[in-house]
């Protein structure tokens, strides 16, 4: 019962528990949530651990035979008191083992409803289960077989033994469950094991299981070992009539309010009725209003109609209208008469105007005739004068023509003279030229001859250029070779005095040397001395000297040959010849210069010029000769002069004179022409005027003829004028009358009066119609009031509305009151419940922080977790049914473990079987839950069936691998 005290842990919780005031609603300290939970729990656990060896259920082995897929016997032995993991792949028989366990406890061996235990198609099989377990410290063995005729049940516990139904009852009593009265066992019979044995996929279905185990749980909560005396009181209070009243209030509240507090049921109906009545009442009141308005309108109309009938206001207006219309008729008559007079007056005036126009026109015609006749006479005189002028002009013209002809002849003569003079002068110039050209031609011919001579001379003297150049080259070579030879020669000088006989032999040449002399040797030589000796001289490089000598000789030979070809003796002859050629060339150049000067375009051209000049001269001489023969060709002409200047002067004079005469002639011509035209024009005009005169006279004669016997127009005009004056007088009299009658005002009055009368009568009629309509309308309205008048309806509706409002008020007040009661009751019930369930809360809270650090679970009805609060500040919390499926499963499992703790504390056997209970957990959550399970396994035996062996490895748990177990089973 005691626990070593930890430093810093103190004995506060224990003390608080002893005082019964442990505040379970206070959250665990945040930083120590899981640890604190475990510690808290540790205290409880320590209490319970002590008794666990004496009480509780510890399954040691499980064997099945001929059961479903286990046709061969299968045995699971060595199960541990703590956590056991029985793993196997899908379909390997995990669930069958769990089923076998259930069957061993829950199904009666005689039950016919366990056909599912039979292996498929094996009708002879007898499924059986064998269990070995420790209960309350004693080992028990259970054998149970089903379906076959030999099915039986045997239970051995220590030294006691039961068989058949007795054995089954004993088991049920120990474990806290029931058997089905009929058929297969269902969850409602399972009691505590139902709560602690979680079937595959049903981990989250906590409420039902807890409901089925309610009684043992309540007992457990009230067991002295679990609950202290003060809790006892709370339990009793919570179980009293409060819940009945709360249920009643909730039911009553639900009749008028929804869960969210909106009106429903009677209250909603009453409110709807209230709105409807308000609407209806408003409608009726509107009808009443309109009815009242109609009645008032009817009264007004009736009054107005009566007034109309009594006063007949349109009658005086009608009388006024009659009078005005009479005046209007008089005005119309006057207006018509005025129109007639106006027309007659207009007609007379027009006639008068016409007559006057006639008179005026005749007068004008006469005046016009006289005027035209005078004009004709005047024109006649003008025509005679023009004719005289024309005759004079013609005479002057003839005179001028004669003078002009004479002067023209003189000009011709002068021109001829001038021409001849010019011709003669030209002929002289041509002759001079002819002579000069003839001389030049001669000189040129002479020069040409000289030139030809010179050319011949030059050609004889001239040495051809290549030959000359070759000769000159050879000459220079000779000079050079000789110079070289001079240099190469060995000088030999001698002074022999009188000695003779010394002979010099050079090649073939033998030369006696005597006296004194010297020479150059260009080749080996021998000096033969008298006496037969000799001196041999070899000029230095004798061979070169020889070569040079040879070349020289060769060149000299060639030169001589070339000179010979030219007919020249030697080099000097050549030089002379070259000099002579140069002189000839010079002379030739001079001759060429002379020819070029004399005949720049060549001699032939010069000769052609000369021939042309000769020809021209011949021509001119022929031309001149006939003129000279003609002598005095023009009489009166000046002496023919060969002086061109004088001839020209004479010509100018003659031409000037002829110009003057021509001008005079032109003037005379113009004057004659003008005079002729004037005469023609006047004549034509005269003719036209005479024709017009004739026409006018004819017309006048015709008019005079017509007018004969007609009344005098002047008299007619007089009569008409008088008639017109009378008409005007009458018209003005009528106009005065009309103006006095004011026709516009009369017309306006007539319009106004007739409109007013029409309006009054129309208004009267309209009122009658309106009144009739209104009466009909009101009677119609009255017709609808046979059973209930509008006012009565309004009053009835008002009354109903007032009652409905009263009812709404009452129902609302009552609903609010019920709402308040429900809220208060629920609130205080929760508080009581929390106090009541606190042992369970404590145990839940021992596990919860493992999974949800710092979280608290609040318990609700049926000792079920209601909401999860993540920390102290989370007042609302997350309702359990809003949690995710995984979290819900996990919380449900924790609840089951807490129940197990409670039951265990109350001395009930607890075996926890989880068939794939944590399938929805992620790795992290699974680890947390495994810690929770390990913790629970300190107090309870836990069998975990799983298909995920790997998830459960490494735990301090006994591991069983189903395929291994099956392999180890003997095959039958």
């Amino acid at each position: 019962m005691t626990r070593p005290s930890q430093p810093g842990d103190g004995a506060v919780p224990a003390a608080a528990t002893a005082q019964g005031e442990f505040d379970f609603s206070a959250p665990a300290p945040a930083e120590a949530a899981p640890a604190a939970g475990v510690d808290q729990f540790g205290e409880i656990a320590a209490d319970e651990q002590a008794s666990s060896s004496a009480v509780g259920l510890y399954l040691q082995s499980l064997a099945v035979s001929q059961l479903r897929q286990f046709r061969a016997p299968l045995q699971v032995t060595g199960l541990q008191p703590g956590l056991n993991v029985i793993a196997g792949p899908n379909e390997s028989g995990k669930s069958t083992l769990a089923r076998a366990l259930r069957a061993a406890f829950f199904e009666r061996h005689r039950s016919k409803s366990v056909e599912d235990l039979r292996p498929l198609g094996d009708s002879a099989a007898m499924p059986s289960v064998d269990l070995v377990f420790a209960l309350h410290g004693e080992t028990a063995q259970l054998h149970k077989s089903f379906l076959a005729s030999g099915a039986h049940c045997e239970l051995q516990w220590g030294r006691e033994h039961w068989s058949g139904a007795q054995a089954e009852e004993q088991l049920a009593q120990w474990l806290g469950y029931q058997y089905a009265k009929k058929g297969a066992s269902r969850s409602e019979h399972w009691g505590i094991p139902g709560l602690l044995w979680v079937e595959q996929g049903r981990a989250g279905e906590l409420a039902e299981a807890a409901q089925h185990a309610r009684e043992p749980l309540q007992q457990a909560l009230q067991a002295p070992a679990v609950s202290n005396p003060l809790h006892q009181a709370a339990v009793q209070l919570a179980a009293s009539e409060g819940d009945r009243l709360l249920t009643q209030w909730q039911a009553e509240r639900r009749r008028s309010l929804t869960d969210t507090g909106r009106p429903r049921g009677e209250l909603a109906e009453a409110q709807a009725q209230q709105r409807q009545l308000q609407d209806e009442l408003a409608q009726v009141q509107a009808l009443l209003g309109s009815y009242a308005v109609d009645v008032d309108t009817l009264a007004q109309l009736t009054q107005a109609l009566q007034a109309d009938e009594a006063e007949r206001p349109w009658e005086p207006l009608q009388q006024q209208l009659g009078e005005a219309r009479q005046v209007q008729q008089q005005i119309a008559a006057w207006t018509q008469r005025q129109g007639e007079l106006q027309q007659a007056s207009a007609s007379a005036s027009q006639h008068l105007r016409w007559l006057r126009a006639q008179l005026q026109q005749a007068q004008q015609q006469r005046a016009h005739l006289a005027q035209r006749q005078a004009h004709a006479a005047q024109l006649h005189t003008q025509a005679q004068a023009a004719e005289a002028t024309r005759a004079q002009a013609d005479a002057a013209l003839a005179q001028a023509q004669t003078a002009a002809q004479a002067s023209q002849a003189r000009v011709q003569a002068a021109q001829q003279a001038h021409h001849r003079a010019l011709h003669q002068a030209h002929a002289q110039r041509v002759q001079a030229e002819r002579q000069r050209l003839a001389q030049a031609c001669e000189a040129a011919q002479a020069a040409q001859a000289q030139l030809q001579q010179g050319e011949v001379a030059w050609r004889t003297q001239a040495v051809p250029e290549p030959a000359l150049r070759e000769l000159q080259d050879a000459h220079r070579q000779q000079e050079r070779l000789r110079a070289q030879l001079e240099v190469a020669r060995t000088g030999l000088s001698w002074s022999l005095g009188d000695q003779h006989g010394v002979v010099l032999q050079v090649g073939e040449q033998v030369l006696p040397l005597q006296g004194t002399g010297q020479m150059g040797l260009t080749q080996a030589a021998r000096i033969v001395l008298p006496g037969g000796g000799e001196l041999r001289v070899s000029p230095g490089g004798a061979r070169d000297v020889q070569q040079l000598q040879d070349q020289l000789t060769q060149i000299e030979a060639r030169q001589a040959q070339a000179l010979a070809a030219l007919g020249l003796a030697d080099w000097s002859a050549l030089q002379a010849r070259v000099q002579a050629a140069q002189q000839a060339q010079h002379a030739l150049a001079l001759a060429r210069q002379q020819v070029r000067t004399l005949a720049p375009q060549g001699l032939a051209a010069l000769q052609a010029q000369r021939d042309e000049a000769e020809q021209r001269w011949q021509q001119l001489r022929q031309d001149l000769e006939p003129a000279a023969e003609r002598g005095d060709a023009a009489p009166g002409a000046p002496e023919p002069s060969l002086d061109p200047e004088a001839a020209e002067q004479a010509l100018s004079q003659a031409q000037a004179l002829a110009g003057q005469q021509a001008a005079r002639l032109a003037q005379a011509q113009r004057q004659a022409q003008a005079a002729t035209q004037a005469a023609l024009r006047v004549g034509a005009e005269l003719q036209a005027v005479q024709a017009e005169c004739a026409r006018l006279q004819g017309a006048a004669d015709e008019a005079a003829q017509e007018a004969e016997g007609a009344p005098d127009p002047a008299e007619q005009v007089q009569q008409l004028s008088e008639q017109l004056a009378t008409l005007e007088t009458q018209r003005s009299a009528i106009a005065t009358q009309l103006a006095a009658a004011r026709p516009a005002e009369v017309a306006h009055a007539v319009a106004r009066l007739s409109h007013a009368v029409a309006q009054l009568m129309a208004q009267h009629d309209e009122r009658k119609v309106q009144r009739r309509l209104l009466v009909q309308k009101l009677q119609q309205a009255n017709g609808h009031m046979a059973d209930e008048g509008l006012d009565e309806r309004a009053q009835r509706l008002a009354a109903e509305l007032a009652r409905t409002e009263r009812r709404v008020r009452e129902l609302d007040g009552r609903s609010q009151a019920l709402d308040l009661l429900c809220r208060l009751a629920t609130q205080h019930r929760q508080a009581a419940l929390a106090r009541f369930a606190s042992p369970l809360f404590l145990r839940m809270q021992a596990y919860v922080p493992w999974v949800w650090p710092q979280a608290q679970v609040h318990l609700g009805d049926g000792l079920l977790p209601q909401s999860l609060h993540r920390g102290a500040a989370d007042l609302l919390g997350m309702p359990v049914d809003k949690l995710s499926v995984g979290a819900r499963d996990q919380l449900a499992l924790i609840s089951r473990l807490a129940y197990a703790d409670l039951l265990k504390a109350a001395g009930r056997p607890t075996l926890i079987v989880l068939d794939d209970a944590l399938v929805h957990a992620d790795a992290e959550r699974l680890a947390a839950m495994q810690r929770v399970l390990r913790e629970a396994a300190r107090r309870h035996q836990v069998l975990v069936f799983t298909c995920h062996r790997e998830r459960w490895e490494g735990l301090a748990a006994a591991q069983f691998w189903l395929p291994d177990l099956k392999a180890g089973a003997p095959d039958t």
Partner: protein
Amino acid sequence: MPRFIHTADWQIGRHYPFLEADDAVRLADARLAAVVRLMALAVRLDVDAVLVAGDVFDAQTVSDKTLRRLFAALGTERAVVLLPGNHDAALAESVWTRAQRLDLVPPQVHLALRPEAIVLPSMAVLPAPLVQRHTRGDATAWFDTAETPPGLCRIGLAHGSVQGILAEGMDADNPIAADRAQRARLDYLALGDWHGLRQIDARTAYSGTPEPERFRDNGAGQALLVEVDAPGALPRLRPLATAAHTWQQQAVDLQVPSDVAALIDASTRWPARLVLRLVLSGHIDLASHARLQRALDEARARVASLSVDEQGLQVAASEAELDELAVDGYLLDVLAELRARQAQGDATADEAMRVFARSLMQQRGLA
């Protein structure tokens, strides 16, 4: 010499929105029953005529059925003069034109729709009918110059407020000169509009309505028997009780248990024809309230109409009651909180407390 009944303000067709529906119907019918009784009285007293001073009908647009019932109630034995009042003014289209159109008006019933003297064998009645809903002019003015056959008593019949006599705040519409009887040489001026019986002077009086319809105690529920011995003689007036129901409003303050007991005791003696409005105030415990409720429910079944206003009444459980009711568990906490809220004047808590008490008593089989 003339002997007639003066009555007014029948208000036929009136409804009572503030009463329970069945009570309201019954009391509306009672108005017609009063007319029947009045006419029977007229026969018994052998009067010459019944003069009704306006507001015969409560509204213009009552049903044909209502019209028929009223005219049927008038019978055929006694002359009746019906004066249009402000509720049933003689408008262009009115309850009167409708009655004429339906041919409901028997020969001895005179509709005073125009200001014209109605000459009966023993008297000349000068009516002042209202022809508009509201008038500012004195409709009785024409009485002053009205000619009547000599030797006949001149009886005025009008509906409105006598100027300067009635309490302030009365409708100023439809004024009547205070000295009209004297100025118009009337032997008697019969008035309507004031629902209680009230004599203005020796020759002028309001008869009031024959059947009360308000909780105000102003002498309603009567009619006047008028006798005039000769023209110029002072009229003799005698009130006639005509009411079937008594209308009362009682305010009761409940402070101690004996107050409740007294009220319960009184309730057993309430007459059947009582129309009662009970306004309760004070404090009361659960048990007393339950007892009172029971008594009032019993009374309600007996009297003509009972309406109770409990708004001023606080119902709370006493300490003794709490012990007696043996409230336990969290209900104790609920009760404590309710009382705390009541102390703060929470009306919802008051109602919740009543519900609580009733529920508890039902549980205990006390209620």
